[in-house]
């Protein structure tokens, strides 16, 4: 079991077991922590010049790709609310080195997608963070640029974070959050989400939401389905929808209902659940025995921007140690970089490679519109 009773558990991935591929990659940072000099040397030998011992490109190197004569005053980063406060400070060094301010445009995912699509060709957003399932459709609709593999720090990305449609920004893992006051036994299965014991006190992600896809994928597999057809899971939710108190667009949105004792159990991102506990939400988090699917916050670059070189420089910074560390510290998200060093004493999810379940995001997002139409009909009504 990968469930932790203490939110601030041991640092991630003490295990060396190589059950799954992502696990291999998640465990790599630890290796590197122990072998920092070696890695630095290794990095040095790659074509990209490396400025420090961490194996990441130095800020001077990054800044050099965004010289002052082409540097805009600012880059607009569109993402969820509250991120400015959490990870904003980790951009200060970039601003200092390049003179480029990072401006946060906080918005709801739907609004972000609509805006990007509407501005397609003449974007006001330079870089956006979207769930992994939304990256491909954006790219296929011509809204975003293909990823540039030549940018600094790209090499060190985990394979999952190297996509045509964008750049991985952080790794997340889904599990179950529950209120131990009402859910007295630690849930062990995704099926517990639909238990009669919790009827009227269950919250479920609505669609489209990456947590929704992830949870549907798990339930679907338990129903004997595969990721390319989520019908069985959608129908299962449809049959059980009476038990579900609310379908939420983001897990933090359900906090008031959790705090009020109305919602007892719901799927959540591991890191988001820990952050929620920090705010005083009376929950625990667990990865069920079936394991927890991993997903990724993805950086996408709207096509047609004048600021592309500096945007890429910023992404290089984003996938470097400082920003990845901020994600880990504030949101307990896993890093996308094989060079990343998890700070001492910090739990990030995924923290146990044995719990990692890989789902087929590409297929699920390709089928997204159909799944949503089905969801509308079967669940929403």
């Amino acid at each position, binding site marked *: 079991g990968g469930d932790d009773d203490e939110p601030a558990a041991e640092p991630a991935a003490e295990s060396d077991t190589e059950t799954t591929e992502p696990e291999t990659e998640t465990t790599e940072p630890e290796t590197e922590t122990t072998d920092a000099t070696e890695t630095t040397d290794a990095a040095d030998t790659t074509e990209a010049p490396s400025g420090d011992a961490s194996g990441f490109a130095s800020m001077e190197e990054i800044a050099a790709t965004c010289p002052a004569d082409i540097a805009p005053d600012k880059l607009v980063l569109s993402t969820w609310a509250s991120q400015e406060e959490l990870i904003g400070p980790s951009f200060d060094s970039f601003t200092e080195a390049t003179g480029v301010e990072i401006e946060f445009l906080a918005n709801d995912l739907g609004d972000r997608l*609509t*805006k990007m699509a509407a501005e397609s060709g003449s974007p*006001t957003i330079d870089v956006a963070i979207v769930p992994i399932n939304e990256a491909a459709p954006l790219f296929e609709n011509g809204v975003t640029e293909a990823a540039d593999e030549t940018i600094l720090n790209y090499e060190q990305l985990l394979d999952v974070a190297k996509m045509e449609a964008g750049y991985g920004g952080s790794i997340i893992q889904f599990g179950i959050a529950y209120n131990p006051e009402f859910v007295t036994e630690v849930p062990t299965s995704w099926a517990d989400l639909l238990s009669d014991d919790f009827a*009227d006190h269950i919250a479920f992600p609505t669609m489209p939401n990456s947590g929704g896809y992830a949870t549907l994928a798990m339930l679907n597999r338990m129903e004997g389905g595969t990721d390319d057809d989520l019908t069985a899971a959608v129908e299962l939710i449809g049959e059980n929808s009476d038990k579900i*108190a*609310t379908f939420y667009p*983001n897990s933090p949105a359900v*906090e008031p209902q959790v705090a*009020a004792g109305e919602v007892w159990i719901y799927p959540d991102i591991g890191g988001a659940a820990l952050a929620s506990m920090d705010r005083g939400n009376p929950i625990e988090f667990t990865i069920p025995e079936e394991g927890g699917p991993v997903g990724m916050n993805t950086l996408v670059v709207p096509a047609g921007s004048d600021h592309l070189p500096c945007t890429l420089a910023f992404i290089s910074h984003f996938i470097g140690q400082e920003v990845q560390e901020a994600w880990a510290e504030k949101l307990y998200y896993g890093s996308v970089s094989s060079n990343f060093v998890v700070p001492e004493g910090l739990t990030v999810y995924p923290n146990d490679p044995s719990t990692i379940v890989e789902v087929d995001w590409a297929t699920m997002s390709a089928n997204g519109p159909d799944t949503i139409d089905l969801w509308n009909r079967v669940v*929403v009504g």
Partner: protein
Amino acid sequence: MRRLAPAGLIGPVTVVVGVGAIGPLIVLLLYSFGILGNIEDPGTQLYTEILGDSYFRGTFVRSLRLALTVSIVSLVVAVPLAFRISRSRGWARTLLTCLVVLPLLINIVVRNLGWVLVLSPNGVLNSWLEPIGVSQSFLGTVTGIGLVLVHVSVPLVVLPLLASIDRLDPAQSEAARALGAHPAVAFVRFTLPAIAPGLLAGAVLSFVIGIGSLVTPIFLGQGRTMVIPTLIVQQISTFRWERAAALSMLLFALVVGVVVAMQRISQRMARGRTERSRRRGPILRPRPLTDAAARLNHLPTFDGLRRWVSRVYLVVMTAFLLLPMVVVLKTAVDDSQIPTASWHGFTTEWLQAAIREDGYRTQLLLSFRLAIVAVGLGLVLSLAASWAIARYRFPGRDAVVAFLMSPLLMPQAALAVGFVLFFLILQTDPSFERLLFAHVVVTIPYMTRVLVSTFENIDARMEEAAAACGARPLTVFRKITLPLVRSGVFTACLFGFLQSFDEAAISVLIASGDTTTLPVKLMSDMSFQPSPVGAAISAILIVAVVAVVVPLERRFGISSSAVLAGRDDD
């Protein structure tokens, strides 16, 4: 020269509204037929697909039923309130008016949060109901959505109704009573038809709000209630623009259809028999229903009971209008990071955080600046046009008035999408100016409405008398007209300001990082993660607005010019 004046004065505002409302509409139309967008061959296939699909039809029916119910319920609860306000004087009138307009003064997202805390299973309402053994969660139900929509509809229904009621000739119902009609019969047969224009204006506004609303179904619907605007937004986020456009057009057509039908009904009510039937039919038409009503005449008038019921009604209504606001105020000073209905202790932490630089200060200032500039421009445009509309009789005058109101009729979601697509086509620079343009367009209908009525209420002879005294036209306007319409101008500005200051649906799609308005940020923040800081900024605004509005209402009588605005001038 005299003949050219109206064109010169009305022209600018017509162009702005034309570009701002009709432009987006045309863009939507082109998308929906696949002329723009990614569809292989243009045609009506999207429409046939949507109309042939029982799911879409069902969703249209649900949206329609929701909006109609909201409209009817709003009318039913607003009528007694409007009568009550109409009868009251002095401070009572001020307080009741402020009570009624309060729901308009609070940010939509925060208002919704307030309602969630009131209506959720362990919320305020149930904590009151539990002792008497009833418990009901409205969250995630159409009823809950309807309730919240009624909350914000009530002010928009009361104001036009007040205008009708204030002009009611009480003699009409007195005459009926003297002829033997029970007060209830007199009310239904004579008072209601007489206030039909006010009922119509209110019904139209609340219907449009009900059918176009986006935020409320998301918050209160809890992901289990689909309405057309949600569906439209969902289509867009899955890159099905054309389908979104077709849904928007169908929604718009539905709104126009219902509004026309409402107009018909109201005219029937107000006009009685058709010309034909009264010329051809029997002198007296059979009236089985009212023959039955005559039996009521022997019932008592229940005067005592009525007084009692009216008191209870006022208390319930006050609670209904105030409750979500009280909850927001509570959340703003309650020592809990997660907004709840229960009390944890007093803190000013959230209030302080709200006005910090990294709180809402920047957005607050931006919204303020935007609203001021939008109202300034809107005022210049609508002042000129309203004066011309009120003073001149020219062909197409009614059409111009209707046209200037058209942004009100377009469902918010459709208008927002239309705007974005429109800007996309125009390839304008993203900027404060885009935002400003959209805001001017949405404030103009409100401002024009108030100003036209205000000017019409000013005796044109006052201006003539000044001309006879030797004053040139501009001098007349400056020294006589403007001072006389002061309170109307003030009210128009207040309405315009609030409209702009609370606009989110369109702004969110236009906003960039440094042009994120307060409501957009609140919406982004609160829909992601409800926080007491969002409640705190709203609480500050509620208090500020009340502190500004109450004295101004006392001084200028905003309510009466707002009431004028609701007047139906047919």
